[in-house]
């Protein structure tokens, strides 16, 4: 059974169609990547799947629940790491986890052990009592991953999980995402505009451009399908969308990304 499905999922903002009839299905345990430049509609898809934004038309189910009709059930079943910084800098790492454990109804008897396990998983035990404001970008991302796994979600959504991180921190995040799928058998749905990230992490990817899915499949199959098994995903992307992948985005988006990068340190 597919743990995530969308049918003709569409979102319009006035005249602009940000997401245009997207059909996806993701099996339990997969690491699925939505690949595309800024402004392709990736974040809008994630917002609809996490119940933050109602679709204009079409439908989507996550963990067997309809995102529009049963949003509360969907929210119980998912974890989410937004693109923007989502931990509170004026609290310690431990406090961030504690508040979310309470918000998610982790039973009192398990709270401390779950928090300790989450901290250990991302390697932040020693930094737990420090204010998050003083964390590096990579540490913040790791804390966000710890937060999102605290309640053992079935599906974990990661929006551009390594944007703004240095290569070393990026590797660490990749390793954690892999173990979440491996050890904890979570389904991971992530967006990225790094080809390398999709290549390294994802079992299957959907290439998204201007709100539509232009190709879908395993990275190696996509490469083979353009007749060059040794091709890079960049070439695959250029083949299916007719142009090079570059980070576009408007002024607002770029300033936002840069601002959050600056904040993460």
């Amino acid at each position, binding site marked *: 059974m597919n743990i995530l499905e969308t049918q003709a999922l569409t979102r319009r903002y006035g005249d602009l169609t940000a997401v245009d009839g997207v059909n996806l299905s993701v099996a339990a345990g997969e690491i699925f990547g939505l690949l595309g430049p800024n402004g392709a509609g990736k974040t809008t898809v994630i917002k609809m799947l996490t119940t933050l934004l109602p679709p204009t038309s079409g439908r989507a189910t996550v963990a067997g629940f309809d995102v529009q009709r049963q949003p509360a059930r969907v*929210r119980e079943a*998912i974890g*989410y790491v937004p693109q*923007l910084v*989502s931990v509170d800098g004026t609290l310690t790492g431990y406090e961030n986890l504690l508040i979310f454990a309470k*918000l998610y109804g982790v*039973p009192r008897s398990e709270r401390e052990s779950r928090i300790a396990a989450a901290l250990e998983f991302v390697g932040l035990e020693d930094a737990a009592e420090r*204010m998050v404001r003083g964390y590096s970008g990579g540490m913040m991302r790791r804390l966000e991953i710890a937060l999102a796994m605290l309640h053992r979600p079935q599906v974990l959504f990661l929006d551009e999980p390594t944007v703004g991180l240095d290569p070393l921190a990026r590797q660490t995040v990749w390793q954690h995402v892999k173990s979440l799928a491996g050890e904890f058998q979570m389904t991971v749905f992530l967006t990225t505009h790094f080809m390398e990230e999709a290549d390294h992490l994802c079992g299957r990817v959907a290439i998204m451009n201007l709100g539509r899915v232009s190709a879908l499949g395993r990275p190696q199959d996509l490469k083979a399908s353009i007749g060059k098994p040794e091709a890079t995903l960049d070439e695959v992307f250029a083949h299916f969308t007719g142009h090079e992948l570059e980070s576009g985005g408007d002024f607002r988006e770029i300033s936002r990304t840069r601002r959050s990068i600056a904040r993460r340190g």
Partner: protein
Amino acid sequence: MKSPELDALSRAADEAPPALRQQNRAAAFLRQCLALTEMEMRKLRHDPTELATRALQPMLWLAVFGEVFSRVRAIPTGSSMRYLDFLAPGVLAQSVLFIGIFYGIAVIWERDLGIVHKLLVSPAPRVALVFGKALSGGVRGLSQGVAVYALAWLLGVAINWRAGMLAGVALAILLGAATFSTLSLIIACIVRTRERFMGIGQVLTMPLFFASNAIYPIAIMPGWLKVIAWLNPLTYEVDAMRAMMIRGGKTIFGLGMDFAILALSVLVLAGLAGKLYPNLAK
């Protein structure tokens, strides 16, 4: 992997008899609401400087404005009350108003980061989040209460120290702060940017403060202003505080009416804020 706890929980909730299910839901609601309040209290404990600076303004009102106008005797208090006694509850209500009405800034900050998104993807109902924020505003308001009481005592205000009265004032502070921080949340949901919010916040505080009984009685107002004052929740907050904070203080509307209107304001505004809160993540 399915989460066994959540499964068990949702199974229990599905199978539980309706009364018990409601009890569980109410317990979860309260827990989620208090989690947000705890978040606020922990932040304030790490950095209490904001509360200290916020306490300066009411001090100036009492020590400068209050002292001067007590001597001028320009404002009739409508009874034998000294003006400083009359003013102290008004200044307390004002400082709670200020702390509440600018609370939306913090919410916009949370939106510029991804914290609002994170909260909205949690299983907590939107209204539980709003009540949590409202109660957080209330906690900040209580700290103002302590500061104003201390200064009022130093200035020789006729404070009523009976425990029941103190508890009553605390409740009025909580409700007043909840009212205005929820109003502030609503504004934040509509304007969404800091710049626009500051403009509107400043425009709102003036009429809320001056079209109320905080620094003069309603009786001396012209008719049209009286109507605005009657519609202003701050009026009822001040009325309740004046009756309970000051020895010999009297209410005009009755404490029952005061608290009923404040509670109703919180409920109506929280309902509205619960509808608008998701807009912050869109």
